[in-house]
């Protein structure tokens, strides 16, 4: 019974790790898309002020 439990725990842990890895890859892809494709996060106010001054 104890051995079976250890095996089941190991399997669940592996599934958990795979799930996390999948989420990490997905998250990185979305982040890549957000910053390298859309580029709507840049604040140019400071730069304008600097240029003006």
């Amino acid at each position, binding site marked *: 019974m104890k051995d079976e439990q250890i095996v089941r725990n190991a399997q669940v842990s592996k599934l958990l790790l795979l799930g996390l890895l999948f989420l990490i890859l997905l998250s990185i892809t979305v982040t890549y898309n957000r910053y390298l494709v859309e580029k709507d996060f840049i604040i140019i106010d*400071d730069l304008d002020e600097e240029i003006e001054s």
Partner: protein
Amino acid sequence: MTAELLCPWESPVFLFFSSNVPSLVHYSHAVAFVTLLVFCSFIFFSNTRSLVGRLVFWFSIVLSLWIFIDVILWSTNRPDLVMFGWSLQILLEPIVYALIFYILYTYFRQSFPGIYLNIFIALLLLPIILLLPTSLTVVDLPLSYCEATEGFLASHYSYFVNLTLLGLAVIYSIIFIKQTRVTNKYRAGLYLLSAFTLFALTFTGFNIVSTITGDWTLSQYGLFSIPIFALLLGYAIIEFNAFNGRQFSVKLIVLALWLSVGSLLFIVQSDVGRIITFFTLAFTILTGYFLIKSVSKEIEQKRLAQSLATELAGVNMRLERLDKMKSEFVSIASHQLRSPLTSVRGYISMIIEGSYGEVNPKVKEVLTHVSDASRHMALSIEDYLNVSRIEAGNMKYEIADYDLKKLVKEVVVELVPVAEKKGIKLEFKPATEECVAVKLDIGKSRQIVQNLIDNALKYTKDTGTITVVVRKDIQAKKAYVDVIDQGIGISPEGLKTLFQKFERAKNANEINVTGTGLGLYIARTMANGMGGDITVASEGEGKGSTFTFVMPLNGIEAKWN
């Protein structure tokens, strides 16, 4: 339009070099990157099957990636890359800390954490993973200084996760260290714990300071702890052979030697030089091969010896348990035998005495034999019981002051009829008129003297004489009971083992076949238990023997006399 929005410095050369990167950043990152990769690869390749080794390898990969991204962040002038890289770093940091936790846990516990702990850690990491692309992680990027504005996840939650994981790692390590015996693994574990804690604290510490002050140059100092981290780990490897690194280091040294000697072949110009180098290389290859082989053999032997020692300890424990069980069994069995035997003996003696009517003389003779045999049996059972009491440590002594001379005289008087029946003369010759006061257990001392005289009677042929002498030596403060017989004697070899369990003199069976070989063992153990001893002297087979029961005088004879 967006392609033109760049940070206010030139594009980097070879990805890492631009005017925005202070030399401190290059220095701290290069040292940390190289040290980490070389050192952790060393640990990984020294034992690729080890779970801790694999975790350390992944730790070094993730942290190296973090360092790599960090240099790009400093050098690049592309805002999109800064935002993406910044987000990636925020994701990688908790993973580094999770790996530190798993490394320390697995090293001490030698197993992976349970499912609930894994789920807890996954839940800790999940918000960062899921919310990475949102403005909760990085908000925006002012172009003038090209640094991302951090959201709540980056400025608060990620540090909370890092410190929680580090705290968990330290707590679990300390719990395991307290449970572990002080071995090389324990000592190496202390260095491992110190190395990772030092690194993690400095890394997060300087990052927190940078987040608060907004000066990211400060965060570079955290990376300087990597060489110290490597030093601590290296010391653990060399001194305590953590991660089985010794074998691998020998291979590394030999390989370096081969490469350096081999490279000479391409440098040396003269033919003679080449020939000498060739032979040197051949010699180096040969000796290096034997060196690796001998180190591997030594390590293998050490491992074998350790496993054998562990196995032996287990076997020893099992034997001790079996021995205890055997003693208990003998004790229980002897008790079970003694009770029915007592009633058998009682009824037989009543029949012989005529309590159930007149008995035919022939039947009476047979019953007398049965009675004698059952008496022998009862004595043997008593011996086994005594042995089991001795081995279980349950032998109790009721010590009292008593006159040893009086005690011996009483025993002799009891046994004179038995001796006469065998045609043996049993004499009692006290060497002193005074009493011999000794602290002893009366019952057990009587048993000892009885046993010694009984033996003398058993092993003395008809018409011999047995003399029992009681004497005392005031100066040595000792009392002696000598039982001198003219029996079959004992060979010098027999004398050495006479007091051992189940040992009998070689010629004992010639004259008496019923002995168990336990009497003298029990007698001497009892004598020792009362602070005395039994010694034996014999000039050899056929020349009789003298058994001496020695007890310390209690020093109160003067009062008694």
